[in-house]
């Protein structure tokens, strides 16, 4: 859906010094992806996004949106995307609905269609009751929601969100996350840049990490973790008088149990390594139920997921 080839942006340079903001980046975002675009401040995230939306023109290289080159067919490319900027600006003197109708007009909607669409979108972002309020009265959270609605007017194939949850309260973050998931379920590819790593971890199936204009890594979070040596694991420790070969053999037959290791003398007991994707709470319940009558008990439950923050720090520091 989004393919870039050596996309580059250099600022300035005519008189003053030039700044290489985006340096030969190659990216590929597939259909139905929720792609997280991560990087420290000034890494080139917003510049890249603005090239996708043709707010900025690339210095060199190409980017394709749904197969359309953004410099050769910018208008078609723009019809395919919905864009929510980090700091959404509106015509504050307009009513929210009128602002949406204004954006609808660019896509050739009829008057009636625009009206219906604006109403629909205000409902979609949970602001139906504020349709006829002037934008100048809106809070930051409401402006963010209106921005999402504005990005959605053309029912885009790709939604590009620049820091969509920045500055929102926990409730806001939660509802935004749910809205994004819902939009993705409805076949919309999401490209989002964010500083909120836990959100990215929860939402995105794929991340790209950018620093100083260069792409450092693009992959799923798990693959990246493995590459930099951050393993994910879930394990349970069992102990008790009733532990015997027979019991251990029985445990091995329980679904979800991958392996049983003997612990050191000091730690005592055995460690059960659990298969990926198993709900640890459920497994613990099953084990408890079956083992307690054999005088074996769960002494510890450990779960370690690859930490995106750690991953991010490792990768960006490495660069």
């Amino acid at each position, binding site marked *: *859906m*989004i*393919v870039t080839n050596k996309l580059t942006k250099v*600022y300035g340079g005519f008189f003053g010094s030039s700044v290489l903001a985006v340096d030969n980046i190659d990216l*590929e975002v597939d*259909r139905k992806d929720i792609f997280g675009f991560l990087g420290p401040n000034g890494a080139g995230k*917003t*510049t890249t996004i*603005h090239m996708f*939306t*043709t*707010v*900025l023109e690339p210095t060199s290289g190409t980017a*394709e949106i*749904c*197969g*359309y*080159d953004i410099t*050769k*067919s*910018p*208008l*078609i490319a*723009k*019809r*395919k*995307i919905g*864009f929510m*900027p980090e*700091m*959404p*600006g*509106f*015509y*504050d*003197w307009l009513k929210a609905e009128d602002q949406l109708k*204004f*954006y*609808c*007009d*660019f*896509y*050739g*909607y009829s008057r009636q*269609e625009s009206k219906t669409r604006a109403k629909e979108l205000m409902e979609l972002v949970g602001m139906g009751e504020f349709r006829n309020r002037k934008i100048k009265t809106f809070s930051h959270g409401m402006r963010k929601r209106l*921005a999402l609605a*504005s990005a959605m*007017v*053309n*029912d*885009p*194939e790709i939604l590009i969100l620049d820091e969509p949850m920045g500055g929102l309260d926990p409730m806001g973050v939660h509802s935004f996350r749910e809205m994004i998931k819902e939009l993705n379920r409805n076949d919309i590819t999401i490209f989002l840049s964010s500083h909120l790593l836990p959100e990215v971890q929860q939402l995105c199936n794929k991340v790209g990490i950018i620093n100083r204009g260069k792409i450092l890594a693009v992959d799923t979070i798990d693959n990246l973790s493995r590459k930099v040596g951050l393993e994910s694991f879930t394990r349970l420790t069992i102990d008790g008088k009733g532990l015997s070969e027979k019991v251990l053999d029985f445990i091995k037959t329980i679904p979800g149990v991958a392996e049983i290791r003997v612990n050191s003398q000091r730690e005592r007991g055995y460690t059960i390594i659990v298969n990926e994707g198993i709900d640890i709470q459920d497994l613990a319940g099953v084990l408890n139920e079956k083992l307690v009558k054999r005088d074996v008990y769960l002494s510890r439950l450990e779960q370690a997921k690859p930490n995106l923050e750690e991953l991010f720090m490792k990768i960006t520091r490495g660069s």
Partner: protein
Amino acid sequence: MEAEKKSEETPEKGAPAVKAKESGETFVEAFKQNLMGILIIARTDIIAHLKSPRMAILMVIFIFTVLSGAYFFAGMAADYTEAQPPEFLVWTYIVNLDDDTYPDDMLVITTDTTGKSIGDVTISLFHLNGTLYEKETTDEVGRTIFYDIDPQSYLNSHKGDYVEMYRPVITTEKQMYQFLSEMELYVQTQVADLDEDNVADDVAILVLNERLEPVPGATVSGGFDQDEESTNAYGLYREYNLLKDNYEYEITWNEVVAVDEAEILNDDMDIENLLNLQGPDDVLMQTAGLFIVMIVPIMAIGISFDTISREKISKSVVFLLSRPIGKRSIAAGKFIGSLTALAIPLTVISLVGVGIISMKTSESPSGGFVAGFLVITIVFTAIFVLLQQIFSTLAKTTGNAIMAGISIWLFFYIFFGLIILLINQLVGNQFLSTEYYELSNKLTLFSPTGTYGFLMVLISPTAGDTPIGITSWAPALSFTLGFVILFILSMELFRKRPYL
């Protein structure tokens, strides 16, 4: 790979209209899409501008300046009386012709403006109450006599269509007896438009001897130039284009001296004549040249100083740029929005001004001139809207954009004239010489304010002379080029700006 996938996997989602071709966008599609975008942006801006309190303030200023200017000038034009060149002159002499004791007879002589007799002029003598007293026709030597006339009477005279109205003869009996019966020289002065320049600022003096015969070769001194000159073969002396004043004449013939005086009431140097306000067309031209040229740039600055900078500062431009419309088209839409929002009230108020002029001067300016004036004024407005939009695009703050706009207005309105003076001085042109005017007019073509004045003069039905040193199409070319260059510049600068 993505492109291949797209065609089979993604159904045509999104908005209706303008279906994308798989190969990319064609020129026609892009053109249609951009045109639609321009109209959408322009429409939104027009509504926003027309509703804004700022527009109301600007229009109050415009109404006050332009309408009061038009009212004032129209008043001046209405007061101005244009002189008609006379077809003949009527001379009257109150003398004693029937040898009774009283000089109560009137000799009427009719001549052309050189003093040559004209016959067959009907002279009517009326009582002051308006009833006809007597009617005579002058003979082949242009003379007729009324005997024993009533002191309180007046006459009018006509030959064909030309009528000279209501010349008072004499009003009181006392005045009548002031005339001496034993005059040796009869002298009479008349103020009229003898050189047919529509100003009654010429003097004719007819000199007759005691037998009431014309006196050629009598010396006339005094008047405007104080020179001594003689009466012509018909006994007439003429002096042209005098300034508004009282003039005394001394006429000498055969050592007989007579004195008379003439009063010039209208002259070429009148304020009315300086502005050339002789009718509604002149009033419209001067209102445009003095008031509209000054106030329109202020309107343009006031409306468009923040059209771009406000979008930049509020970041709404980023949303706009992500819509399917080119950057140039956004700039064009903004320009058309500002211009239309200004042009609508400016046209309405200007037409009200034309109405005021028509009412005050009881005559309408010519339709073609009004239409031309509106077109030129709108292009003039467009030039300043574009200049201001460029500043709004370039300036970092809205304040800077306003300052740049006011500076360029001052530059063209005041400093440009000084620069022209300076350049003339540098190349050594004498002040007000032909070379001075030629160079000044050429340089003025680089100023929209000056060119606006040229265009108004050129299309005016009354003052259509091309200023010296330039061709008649030069101002129109200058205006068109200026507009096109600024229009392209405003779009390109908007396209080049980074919006982060």
